[in-house]
């Protein structure tokens, strides 16, 4: 017996670890609690690396645009080009500043009118694996971020915090298949659950054939779960099909937040008196 174990130890250990992993995966699919220690450690270890990578990348881009492009240019044009480049760099910087100011003003305006407390965070990483849609933000527990804090933008719901480190947090996007948000149709007030499809869309669960939901309807948060404030836009209905079970409809919605142009997000740190609404 010992000989067999020794001879096939790699097979036994591999299968044992695979079974253990499967147990973790199947008993933990929604809770996202296990692995919090590793998540915390990776957050502490990796977020500085991510910040450094972004800073190096930006510095590299600046070097390329400012210096390398000047190699080979004749002396006569050098001064003029440098001036032009410097002006262009200044213009780009100002444009960036203007963009940033606009975005921050938009976020600030929203913060002021919103009946809940929020804090602004920047995105430092996107983690799009098979069936996962998660991003990393540069704020953590030290900034008042907690697990299950809602993450929104002035355009609508983005997701919720699944893991808060000291200086960085992981955000589960509404398009992740593990995301379930209590929602309702703004027009007909029909309630449903918005679930991510693992790509770039969200589907509505439990909308009955008889329920009044139409193309173009705005879908908003219902505020029932206590995670999201009530009335935040999740998306717009873009497709409705009859479900296979002839009882529920298959409703697809386009998320209101465009990830491609997103750099800052708002984290709801206190729902205020939303619950009493």
């Amino acid at each position, binding site marked *: 017996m010992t000989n067999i174990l020794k001879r096939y*130890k*790699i*097979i036994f*250990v*591999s*299968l044992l*670890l*695979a079974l*253990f*992993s*499967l*147990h*973790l*995966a*199947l008993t*933990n*699919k929604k809770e*996202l609690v*296990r*692995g919090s220690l*590793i*998540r915390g450690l*990776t957050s502490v*270890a*990796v977020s500085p*690396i*991510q910040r450094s*990578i*972004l800073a190096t*990348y930006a510095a590299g881009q600046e070097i390329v645009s400012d210096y390398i492009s000047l190699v080979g240019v004749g002396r006569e044009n050098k001064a003029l080009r440098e001036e032009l480049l410097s002006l262009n760099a200044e213009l780009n910087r100002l444009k960036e500043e203007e963009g940033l100011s606009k975005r921050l003003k938009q976020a600030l305006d929203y913060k002021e009118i919103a009946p809940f407390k929020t804090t602004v965070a920047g995105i*430092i*990483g*996107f*983690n*799009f*694996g*098979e*069936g*996962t849609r*998660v991003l*990393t933000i540069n704020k953590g527990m030290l900034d008042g971020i907690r697990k299950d804090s809602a993450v929104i933008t002035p355009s609508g719901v983005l997701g919720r915090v*699944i*893991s808060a480190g000291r200086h960085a947090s*992981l955000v*589960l996007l509404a398009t*992740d*298949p*593990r995301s379930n948000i209590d929602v309702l149709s703004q027009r007909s007030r029909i309630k449903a659950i918005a679930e991510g*499809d*693992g*790509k770039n869309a969200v589907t509505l669960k439990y909308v009955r054939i008889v329920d009044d939901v139409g193309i173009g309807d705005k879908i908003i948060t219902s505020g029932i779960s206590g995670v999201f404030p009530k009335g935040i836009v999740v998306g717009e209905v873009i497709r409705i099909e009859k479900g296979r079970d002839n009882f529920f409809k298959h409703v697809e919605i386009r998320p209101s937040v465009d990830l491609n142009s997103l750099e800052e997000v708002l984290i709801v740190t206190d729902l205020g008196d939303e619950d009493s609404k």
Partner: protein
Amino acid sequence: MKESLFLLPIAVFYLAVESTLFPNMPLPDVPLLFVFFMAWKRPGIEGVLLAFALGYIDDAFNGGIIGSTSFALALVFLSAHLLSKRIHFSTPAARAAGAGGLRLLKGLFLYLVLKSAGLKAGGFPRLFFEILLTAAFAPFAIALLNRFCAFINPHAYKDSAN
């Protein structure tokens, strides 16, 4: 053991670069190549543990379902180990085919876990590109890993340059 201690932080750094600079781009699956290399060159308990740890860290770092990637990588290690007894990955083409096949296997194992967990699984076009990229990158990466491991552990690799 030394190899695992060096490969683990490299994989974490790679995950950080991937998620920060190339979030939407299919890239070679470097952690999988590490697992392939260890299963073929250094089959042992430390290799299995490295595969499990890489998967677990990948899940924790990317916010995936804890256990899904470690399940896939532990089985990929086992498959690579069993395959390497029958197939000699001595040519670049064999290494590329092996890596591509293992990436496909990893995708299938992940798909099985997601389906078993009742979740939707998508991203098949991306998987296809990742298989191609992993296969294309494998000969170069394995040559590099050979040199790297021979450098950090010269005795173990003295007689196994290929």
